[in-house]
């Protein structure tokens, strides 16, 4: 019986964030567990900061996660992962892509963008339960297309042990939600992600 399990998937619009969240929600449905998910649609999708929130459990009502109560943070991009700092606490497992996407505005305003290592140190200062990084885009390319980077990270998150669902049900959900031409690609990406996360 899961009372409350909170997930944020954060990244840049266009990275397949909604798909990743939907896979977990669908898995919850398969297990007969209540959930509520909050999504972003509309203009903010256009390469802006995006965060979907998924709350799973018998006691959840609000579609929005309370700061300090996050269980799993799936970060599709390091800066966007760090942007979730108010949510990260000792109960949070962080699984993050190591591929930085620097916002154009930072180049134009000459904002000093932190390095990946600085971001990792910053996240560590919040004492997360665990922190993993994964070469999501490299592995997605190996699987066949960059487009599957989101599923690589999902695989890494599954391997981290933080997701309270069995692997086969997640695979099933990926199969069901993938358009036919991406199904095999996504399953390959999921397996590569499972094998390749790097504990930090």
């Amino acid at each position, binding site marked *: 019986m899961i009372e409350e399990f909170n997930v944020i998937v954060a990244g840049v619009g266009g990275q397949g964030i909604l798909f990743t969240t939907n896979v977990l929600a669908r898995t919850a449905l398969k297990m007969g567990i209540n959930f509520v998910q909050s999504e972003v649609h509309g203009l903010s999708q256009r390469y802006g900061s995006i965060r979907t929130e998924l709350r799973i459990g018998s006691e959840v009502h609000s579609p929005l996660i309370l700061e300090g109560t996050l269980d799993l943070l799936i970060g599709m991009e390091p800066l966007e992962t760090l942007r979730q700092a108010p949510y990260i606490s000792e109960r949070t497992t962080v699984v993050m892509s190591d591929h930085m996407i620097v916002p154009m505005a930072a180049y134009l305003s000459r904002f000093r963008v932190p390095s990946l290592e600085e971001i990792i140190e*910053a996240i560590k200062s919040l004492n997360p339960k665990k922190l993993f990084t994964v070469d999501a885009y490299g592995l997605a390319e190996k699987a066949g297309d960059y487009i599957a980077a989101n599923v690589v990270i999902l695989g890494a998150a599954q391997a981290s042990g933080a997701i309270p669902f069995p692997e086969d049900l997640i695979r099933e959900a990926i199969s069901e939600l993938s358009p036919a031409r991406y199904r095999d690609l996504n399953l390959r990406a999921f397996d590569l992600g499972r094998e390749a996360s790097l504990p930090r």
Partner: protein
Amino acid sequence: MGDLLAPSGTLETLLGNEAIARGALEGGLNVAAAYPGTPSTEIGEALSLAAKKLGIYFEWSSNEKVAAEVAIGAAWSGLRSMTMMKHVGFNVAADAIFTLTYAGLTGAMVIVSADDPHCHSSQNEQDNRHYSEAAGLPMLEPSNVQEAKDFTKEAMELSYRYKIPFMLRTTTRINHQRGPVRLGEITAKGAIGKFEPPEPDRYLQVGAIARKHHLELLKKIKEIQGISGNYARVEGPHDSEIGIITSGVSYAHVKDALRLAGLEAKILKIGMTFPLPERMIGEFLRSINTAFIVEELDPFLELRIKALAKDYAPDLEILGKLTGHMPQVHEYTIRTVLEGFSKAFGVKSPIDFSEIDRRSSKLLEMVPPRQPILCPACPHRSAGYALRRAAGRAVFMGDIGCYALLFQPPFRVEHVTHAMGSSIGIANGVSLATQQDVVALIGDSTFFHAGIPALINAVHNKRKFTVVIMDNRTTAMTGHQSHPGVPYDAIGREAPSISIEDLVRAMGVSYVRIVDPFDHKGTEEAMREALKTDGVSVVITRRECALLTVRNIRAEGKRIVPYRVNRDKCTYCRVCINTFACPAFVDTGSLVEIDPAICFGCGACVQVCPYDAIEPQEGSINWRDDRVGV
């Protein structure tokens, strides 16, 4: 991802907006019409899918007023109809809706108003609950996806019973919430009605008749008030002295906050927020010592509850926005409610928010802001680039669409983003009030929505300014809906397309040019000429939305092959970043690279580099030269 048409009894995962669509289908919907607008759009998308399978009618109308009138016409012909709009869309439709409540109807009609507290995708956070009372329009407010479905069906049934339109008022966090929904029976079908007013003057709102109908409306609202309590419930310990009154998504935040804070309180959850279940509220007020009102935006419930308390419980302490315990702006979260509890009852929050703020604020300073920007390969970027070069000193009236993002550097070709069609409308005023060069930027869908009357006005009144119609062959910002300028309709059938160039020529616009924005030089030249023209000039920048082009390329089984920067040629002059700002550019500190995971391989940036350092790779196509996306 859920099946909208799954059989009765199934538990399906639906988006709030899909649940609303399903509720309408269970309420016997025959006709629906809407103009897309976040956060309401997916209701129409869902109905467009359903229309193909169930034979009901759905259209994307040219604007919200027309959509409402389509639904009114159907409801006056005995059918069950629905129209859906974002909160500001209601302003456009309001003229037709205010008089509709006087007229009533013979079928049924549901009006969905999707409000956007926090302006996630909007220009204001107006609270449309006021429309309900102002127009005499009964209103239901769901608190989760299950209720979104159930209340829509209920609204349809109630509308049919009381012969008056019902409003379903939602907020973004209901529309864009996803969760399990227990489904009921679909009864929607295609139908032919008959226009037959129940009385000869029923639909004729002229003075004497309208005066009579206003009285009837007030009576009807009184009658509906009698059933308002059916949509409210009291939860929690009966003898609690604290009573929370709430509705909509705020109820969900309250539920979590009460559990986390361990606060003992009972809840009065209201589903029909106009007309209110006054007696039920009054009795609730009598049973408590302190009322705490939790509602987003304006103190709509709070003011009415205060008025009721005068009769029922004059000494009751009522806490909310007016007492400073809850904010009157932006959206609520569990935290907002917990902080309200702390202020009101001294309850210690289970989470130390000041500690969280303290340790995260320094880390957040490290993170650069990331506002939405135009996609890679977006034709608007090229149009903005050309416009900046051609008309650097003009003042730019922008409009509602993705191109509103051109207000950002390095383009800065939007000084105004206001309301649908306001680019041309306000250009009328600025061009007469000043001697500045004035440019209005408007998208194709927005032009059909509200740009046409403003342009006619400009020609007739001999204004001088330039209109750039950024025609990307779709309603892009809301996710690619059809509009009157494209050759297919809302459910993908062939449809007559209205030619923008023929339309503007017929208005008497003398200078009309159509360009491919990916032809930077040609676009810039056309804009320079247009600005020199006396009178109203129009440049149509025509190229399909890049996301559609990418989708089509992938659907053909082809791969997107990114461009790359030749390291030997790149001098790190940063002209590409400083003038074109495609999100695929990466500044390494010594040269510029193209991120292959972001580049869509359009090739437009090749024209921007003064050193010809941007090159195709094996398999790359050039969208302009290869005529892709035009």
